[in-house]
């Protein structure tokens, strides 16, 4: 197996004869665009959940339900979910392309990554938008304060 390596500094050239959308280019742009937005979203998420008040000690159903009852945090979390999973999935794909040398294992890894990303995006989006902050029959002390007394 004689592998020929290009010089590391030779400029990248798209294989001639390739037509259509340059997905690698858009992936490259996506990583940078989503990265900048994710810094704002995740730093805000960490600040509100871990720094304000009692931080991680205050996290419970009442806290999360109180946040997710507002459309602002619903969209914040859904944006974070989609952007972060696709950003992370594409990063994992790059790493698989770099280190998985067999065609079959590369395929398995990449399909596994895609499956994880799609399943978690669907699950997370459904949870955020179908979620009830005041589920019937739950003890009132576990629920956010705005829930009506049962």
């Amino acid at each position, binding site marked *: 197996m*004689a*592998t*020929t*390596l*290009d*010089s*590391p*500094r*030779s400029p990248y050239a798209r294989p001639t004869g390739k037509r259509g959308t340059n997905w690698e280019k858009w992936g490259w742009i996506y990583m*940078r665009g989503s*990265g*900048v937005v*994710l*810094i704002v979203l*995740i*730093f805000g998420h*960490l600040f509100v959940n*871990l*720094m304000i008040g*009692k*931080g*991680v*000690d205050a*996290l*419970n*159903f*009442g806290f*999360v*339900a109180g946040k*997710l009852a507002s459309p602002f945090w619903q969209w914040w979390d859904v944006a974070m*979910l989609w952007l*972060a*999973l696709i950003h*992370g*999935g594409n*990063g*994992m794909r790059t*790493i698989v392309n770099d280190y998985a040398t067999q065609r079959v294992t590369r395929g398995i890894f990449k399909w596994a990554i895609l499956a*994880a990303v799609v399943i*978690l995006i669907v*699950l*997370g989006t*459904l*949870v955020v938008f*179908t*979620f009830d902050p005041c*589920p019937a029959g*739950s*003890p009132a002390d*576990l*629920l956010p304060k705005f829930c009506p007394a049962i």
Partner: protein
Amino acid sequence: MPQESARTLTSQQKTTSRRPAGTLYRGREGMWSWVLHRITGVAIFFFLLVHILDTALVRVSPEAYNAVISTYQTPLMGLGEVALVGAIVFHAFNGIRIILIDFWSAKYQKVMFYVVIGLWVVTMLGFAPRHLMNVFSH
């Protein structure tokens, strides 16, 4: 040697030069920032998978969510959260460095690596003491 196959390089050419010529960043700031970016990226990805699943428990019941989230409030996990935030902060700041290298200039990539480290230290000094006080104060 652009046309030469990797296999024809002797082991001496491959490994023993202390100051590689023609290699942009081997063993230096550029390589270590890349290594750290990969490692932190993979770690954050796997945490993200778990974190979406644990948050999804709000849809199951308050008791189920509280049972799992309380395991995030133990001292051991508290230390893990410092490591996680450290990984996220490095990945974020080094990501900005990468964008600046791509769209502005690679000339200052080494300086920018030390700026990333400096900002990381400042951010972690702001986060870690407060977080650890929350974790260890009950």
